[in-house]
């Protein structure tokens, strides 16, 4: 059995950034395992631009953004294996994987970084009535077909869900000659970034129908059309509001789910809100030496923040392997998300293990206007930041400094909430 200091599961943006930062933190024995034929993950099919504004201060396309990290991985001589599927990981950090060259093999790691990303929610999770004709795709599948394989999935398109991939595909299919008739969103607000609504829908006159859903799919062999209806505040269709749209394709962009089968199998404790692991300030799971970053931890909107988070996971994993972490003080402070804040990452902070600054990332549960993001150290409000608008589709962050914590030696819990004043 081969031994590595750090094994990284997944060679997408999170895995690449984690590998580069672990190497730069002084670890030489690193292996990235990737199931696809190339590194870069989902960025390879995201040919649109807008990536890297935070990281590189310029607008790159997905493949260009990935290439920046792939070049670093190669220059730093970091080992990676493609076409390699990880089957399971035991809690002692033995990784079982297979590929067609080596067959089934095992690797012993000192630290593991989980960077498997996420998957799209599929039709089966939506309870849409109707037959199961051809022509129903997840937005990401259509994206792969159009951008990588060179096939058009259809000519007349309805999109359910206003997640970013659905919005991007509305524009992409329009440019390739398809007619995108409408984007329907169940919620009263869009789940996508504002700039995508402007650049992908408004630019092309594609209507966005909020509080609408698909109530019927017509067609037995191939989609012939869908019926949309308005929904009430409980997301139930309102009778009499049905509207039929003829189309040959229905794209679903109805959410992403972190891909954590391997994590669960090894006994990683999950956060039911994010469907990702519960982690501490080092992005370490309940299993010592097992770290998580990127969309497997919680779904991000911007890859820049995935890279930043993954770099932290890489540094922390390196520190764990080198045993440079000061473990004299093991006090754990819990982070509580309440009153509008759905979750925080991390959910536990051990002050002794903190870097000088820690970014706590979170999402809100609905749209808020002219409100405050508040952070309480026990009962004392230590942050009260005015915000014009907060939306579930845009991840938020708050920076906490180690210095701040030293002033509160008895601190037990940190509460994140949204306040009206």
């Amino acid at each position, binding site marked *: 059995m081969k031994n590595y200091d750090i094994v990284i599961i997944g060679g997408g943006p999170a895995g690449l950034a984690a590998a580069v930062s672990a190497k730069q933190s002084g670890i030489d024995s690193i292996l990235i395992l990737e199931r696809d034929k190339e590194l870069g993950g989902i960025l*390879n099919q995201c*040919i*649109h*631009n807008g990536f890297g*504004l935070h990281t590189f201060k310029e*607008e*790159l*396309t*997905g*493949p*260009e953004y990935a*290439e920046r990290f792939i070049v670093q991985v190669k220059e730093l001589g970091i080992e990676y294996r493609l076409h390699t599927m990880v089957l399971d990981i035991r809690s002692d950090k033995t990784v079982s994987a297979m590929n067609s060259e080596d067959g089934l093999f095992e690797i012993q790691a000192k630290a593991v970084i989980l960077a498997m990303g996420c998957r799209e929610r599929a039709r089966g999770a939506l309870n849409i009535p109707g037959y199961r004709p051809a022509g129903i795709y997840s937005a990401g599948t259509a994206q792969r077909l*159009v*951008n*990588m*394989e*060179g096939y058009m999935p259809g000519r007349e398109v309805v999109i359910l869900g206003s997640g970013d991939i659905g919005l991007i595909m509305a524009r992409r299919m329009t*440019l*390739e000659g398809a007619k995108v008739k409408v984007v329907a969103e169940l919620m009263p607000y869009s789940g996508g*970034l*504002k*700039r995508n*609504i*402007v*650049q992908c829908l408004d*630019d092309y006159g594609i209507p966005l129908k909020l509080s609408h859903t698909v109530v019927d799919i017509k067609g037995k062999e191939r989609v012939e059309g869908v019926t949309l209806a308005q929904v009430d505040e409980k997301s139930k269709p309102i009778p009499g509001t049905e509207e039929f749209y003829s189309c040959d394709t229905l794209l679903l962009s109805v959410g992403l789910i972190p891909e954590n089968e391997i994590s669960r199998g090894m006994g990683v404790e999950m956060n039911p809100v994010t469907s990702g692991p519960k982690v501490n300030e080092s992005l370490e799971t309940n299993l010592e030496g097992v770290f998580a970053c990127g969309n497997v931890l919680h779904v991000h*909107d*911007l890859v820049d923040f995935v890279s930043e988070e993954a770099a932290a996971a890489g540094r922390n994993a390196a520190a764990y392997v080198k045993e440079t972490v000061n473990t004299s003080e093991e006090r754990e402070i819990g982070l509580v998300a309440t009153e509008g804040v759905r979750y925080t990452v991390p959910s536990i902070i051990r002050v002794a293990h903190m870097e000088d600054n820690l970014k706590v990332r979170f999402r809100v549960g609905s749209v808020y206007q002219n409100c405050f993001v508040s952070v309480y150290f026990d009962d004392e409000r230590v942050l009260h930041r005015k915000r014009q608008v907060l939306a579930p589709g*845009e991840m938020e962050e708050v920076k906490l400094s180690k210095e701040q914590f030293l002033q509160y030696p008895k601190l037990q819990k940190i509460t994140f909430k949204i306040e009206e004043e």
Partner: protein
Amino acid sequence: METRNLTCINCPMGCALTIEMEGNEVISVSGNTCLRGDAYGRKEVTNPTRIVTSTVRVTGGAADMVSVKTGQDIPKGKIFECVKALRDVEVQAPIHIGDVIVSDVAGTGVDVVATKNVESR
């Protein structure tokens, strides 16, 4: 005086801009939280432009398609013409990031360049 409402797209903040115009003259931009918002608002109502991204076919490569983009933003009204000009283009591998795929696309003076490396098969 005419008022136009736009959403700034420079960053995920998505500021709601209000632009006051007198004919083709921009009188004021408000609602922005940074200078980029002001510049975007002025440009968007007078000369809107976009970076266009697409794909073209590759022969003899490790992949069948290569992603491309306009090297700079082009007028919004030229988007469809640009994509149409790329429809029947086929390039021979190897292709590297930055290689010019179509020069002066749709008479914009802007080149379409590759955004991905595709090595020979």
